[in-house]
């Protein structure tokens, strides 16, 4: 029987071998090599720091640029979005029409569910409820705006020029152009503001990224 605590002869020899190896292991790199390595390490560390500065500045400029571009697109929606809306509305068929519903005024000028259910484009969209409520809110505001008394706000100058609620963007654009040609810049500007508000919101409704 061998004692587990007692080292085996091979282990003793291995330890002796290790000790013998370390007896002769005294070689070291020359000071010249040491110096070269240390110098190189310092140089690398220093160079990296200098490289980091322009990289940081470049990143900041890039982020600022992207921020500005996003901001610009956020303020003025691209023309393409309006055109897309125009095309899709033509495909949809008859535009939405506000209808007076309950007598208490709650939910007045809403688009009926039956009317919405007849439109294939709206049916195919995923967030049905969200789209409906946004569209309802837009229609309601447009209706209220069109029925404001003259002098209520600066937009009242063009109340009479607002196309019917079922009119598409082309009709709006035609009226704005006519007013401009007639020299009615204030009314044209007012109508253009309403146009932007209406169709940018309508575009948001259509945008898939706006699904909540």
């Amino acid at each position: 029987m061998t004692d587990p605590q007692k080292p085996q002869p091979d282990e003793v020899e291995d330890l002796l071998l290790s000790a013998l190896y370390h007896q002769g292991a005294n070689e070291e790199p020359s000071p010249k090599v040491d110096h070269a390595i240390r110098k190189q390490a310092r140089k690398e560390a220093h160079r990296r720091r200098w490289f980091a500065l322009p990289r940081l500045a470049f990143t900041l400029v890039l982020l600022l640029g992207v921020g500005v571009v996003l901001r610009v697109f956020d303020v003025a929606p691209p023309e393409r979005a309006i055109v897309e809306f125009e095309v899709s509305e033509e495909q949809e068929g008859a535009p939405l029409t506000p209808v007076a519903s309950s007598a208490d005024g709650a939910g007045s000028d809403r688009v009926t569910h039956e009317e919405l259910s007849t439109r294939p484009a709206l049916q195919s969209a995923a967030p049905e409820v969200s789209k409906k409520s946004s569209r309802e809110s837009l229609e309601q505001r447009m209706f209220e705006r069109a029925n404001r008394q003259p002098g209520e706000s600066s937009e009242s100058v063009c109340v009479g020029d607002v196309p019917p609620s079922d009119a598409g963007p082309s009709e709006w654009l035609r009226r704005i152009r006519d007013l401009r040609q007639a020299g009615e810049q204030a009314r044209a500007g007012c109508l253009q503001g309403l146009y932007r508000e209406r169709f940018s919101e309508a575009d948001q409704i259509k945008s898939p990224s706006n699904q909540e």
Partner: protein
Amino acid sequence: MKWYRDGDADAFDRLYARYRAPLYRYVLRQCAGCAEVDELYQDVWLRVVRARHQWKESQRFRPWLYRIAHNRVVDHWRARGATREDIDLPDTPDGSPLQEVIAHLRDCVARLKKLLGHLPAVQRDAFLLKEEGGLTLAEIAQVTGAERETVKSRLRYALKSLRQGLEGCDD
């Protein structure tokens, strides 16, 4: 290493002072007889410097360092198109000992170095990673990309060969 990686250039000096000699011997024994020892050794440290951002705090520095050295040595062997077994080591000068014991010891050390040079490369590598690197079996396996049992076997064979070649040195 963390400090150096984070930009403290002085930290490298401390790190270097600690590992320079054993790492140098590791490279030297792997490449004894070839003229490029200093160049190889310098290149290992340069790789360490350049790869410092790849080092993670969760890993020990020593195995990471020896893995770089091991890879560099393997690259060197491949570039030469030969393994170390083919290379004969020059006799290590054993000085002029005055006492018989010292002479005997020196003779044994010289024989050991020579024997080491004649070991198969993988066995020598495992032996040096253990003796110079101070690595465990698991760490050697990690560095060389071999199984732990394979490393254990390599070490056993290396020690056996060295013991056989050093008969008369155990007294």
